[in-house]
């Protein structure tokens, strides 16, 4: 049984992009397109989720993702409550469910969940009452579906189609839930060539089985690309002996104007943020004409509005 879909194939929870049908992905992107102009209006709100309560349940700190979910919910006229729950090492599953039960007793309609542990959002989704929807806002190394969706939305806005693209994902794929969600979405939407580029120590074993081409040489991997997605290099990985140093990493896998020139002239550069300038990306590229990093943030609001609107519409059916 697919936890994410209702028996008639509508979106019930959004937990991962793995296995989500193309029709649902397209429906979310199309719906997001119609939410785009809400942010431009005099009144930046539509009354769709009036009277609904959405809880941002963040067990792991995040500013950008939480803020965009909050803005998205508010633009849909929902009531939003933000909970930043510091997790101590002895926090157990039961404690999470106690929190969830308490919030459900306050008549929550939707939980937006971020957790350092893979599978946390699934765990909550399996537990909640039928009228409550769960959105995974990032769980461990597993998935970050709304980031994956907003990246697809960005690609579609700038490139129009998916079927003729070569897309490269560069950097720490091993620890990246964003990369996993992107790969699932790109392959489902029919991108013929998805490449992952990075040092051996930062690419998961068997990543080829996800339908991607693997490159350890950035110059070779970037040649002819339409879309370059840079991943954030988490500084704590340096200590784990996976990498020699930030300088060394930048030399081989940092996106500089010279390396960018190897991709197609109209290639776009994306990054899920926050960026480490001078580690995975040169400021000249990050702020340059091919960068679509700030549009990604803006689109993230419309995409999250679409996900919440579709879920709230299904929950009551």
């Amino acid at each position, binding site marked *: 049984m697919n936890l994410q879909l209702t028996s008639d194939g*509508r979106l019930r929870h959004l937990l991962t992009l793995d296995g989500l049908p193309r029709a649902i992905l397209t*429906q979310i992107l*199309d*719906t997001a*397109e*119609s*939410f*785009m*102009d*809400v942010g431009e*209006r*005099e*009144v930046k*709100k*539509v*009354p*769709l989720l009036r009277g609904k309560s959405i809880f941002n349940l963040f067990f792991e700190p995040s500013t950008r993702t939480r803020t965009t979910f909050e803005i998205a919910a508010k633009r849909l006229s929902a009531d939003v409550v933000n909970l930043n729950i510091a997790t101590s090492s002895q926090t157990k599953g039961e404690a999470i469910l106690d929190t969830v039960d308490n919030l459900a007793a306050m008549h929550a309609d939707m939980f937006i969940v971020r957790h350092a542990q893979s599978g946390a959002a699934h765990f909550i989704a399996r537990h909640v009452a039928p009228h409550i929807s769960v959105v995974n806002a990032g769980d461990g190394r597993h998935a970050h579906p709304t980031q994956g969706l907003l990246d697809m939305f960005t690609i579609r806005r700038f490139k129009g189609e998916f079927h003729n693209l070569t897309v490269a994902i560069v950097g720490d794929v091993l620890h990246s839930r964003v990369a996993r969600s992107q790969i699932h979405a790109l392959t489902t939407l029919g991108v013929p060539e998805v490449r992952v580029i990075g040092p051996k120590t930062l690419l998961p074993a068997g990543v080829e089985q996800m339908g991607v081409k693997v490159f350890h040489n950035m110059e070779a991997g970037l040649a002819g690309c339409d879309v370059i997605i840079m991943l954030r290099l988490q500084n704590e990985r340096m200590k784990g002996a996976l990498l020699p140093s930030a300088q060394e990493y930048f030399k081989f896998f940092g996106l500089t104007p010279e390396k960018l020139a190897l991709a197609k002239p109209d290639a776009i550069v994306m990054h899920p943020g926050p960026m480490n300038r001078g580690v995975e990306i040169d400021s000249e590229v990050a702020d340059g004409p091919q960068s679509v990093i700030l549009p990604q943030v803006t689109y993230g609001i419309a995409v999250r509005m679409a996900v919440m*609107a*579709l879920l*709230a*519409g*299904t929950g*009551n*059916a």
Partner: protein
Amino acid sequence: MHASLPDVDPLIARLADAIAPTLTPDTVIVGIHTGGVWVAERLHAILHCALPLGTLDISFYRDDFSRIGLHPQVKPSNLPFDLEGRDIVLVDDVLHSGRTVRAAMNELFDYGRPASIRLAVLVDRGSHELPIRPDFTGLTLDVPPHQNINLSRLDDGHLTLSLA
């Protein structure tokens, strides 16, 4: 009961004749997706309006969202002008309950404060549920509650009315 429904073109011409004397430089035509946009496109062309046509998709303003969810094919609303102080002619194909018009007015006010809104409908079929009446009507028809009247567009752009 209605063996044959009238042609749409003369109905649109009648609407245009009624609207024409009321036009001001601030008049904008706004159609409601989908049928209302088809009628509004025709009116916009016939009346030679200076300002561009506006379109509204009221899916995000429907009062039955919590019962039936989001419409599967939501289209973006497009109002390519400042609404402040405009005289709006809101166009729909069929006036039935009046709930679509209410939703459309709510949406319009989120874009700004128009000077006036008037309602033009191709067909007023009765069975209103809200105190909303058209200012311009192509055809008034008493359709039994269990029947629907639909406007459809053929590939050649021709508009036709049908009962189902």
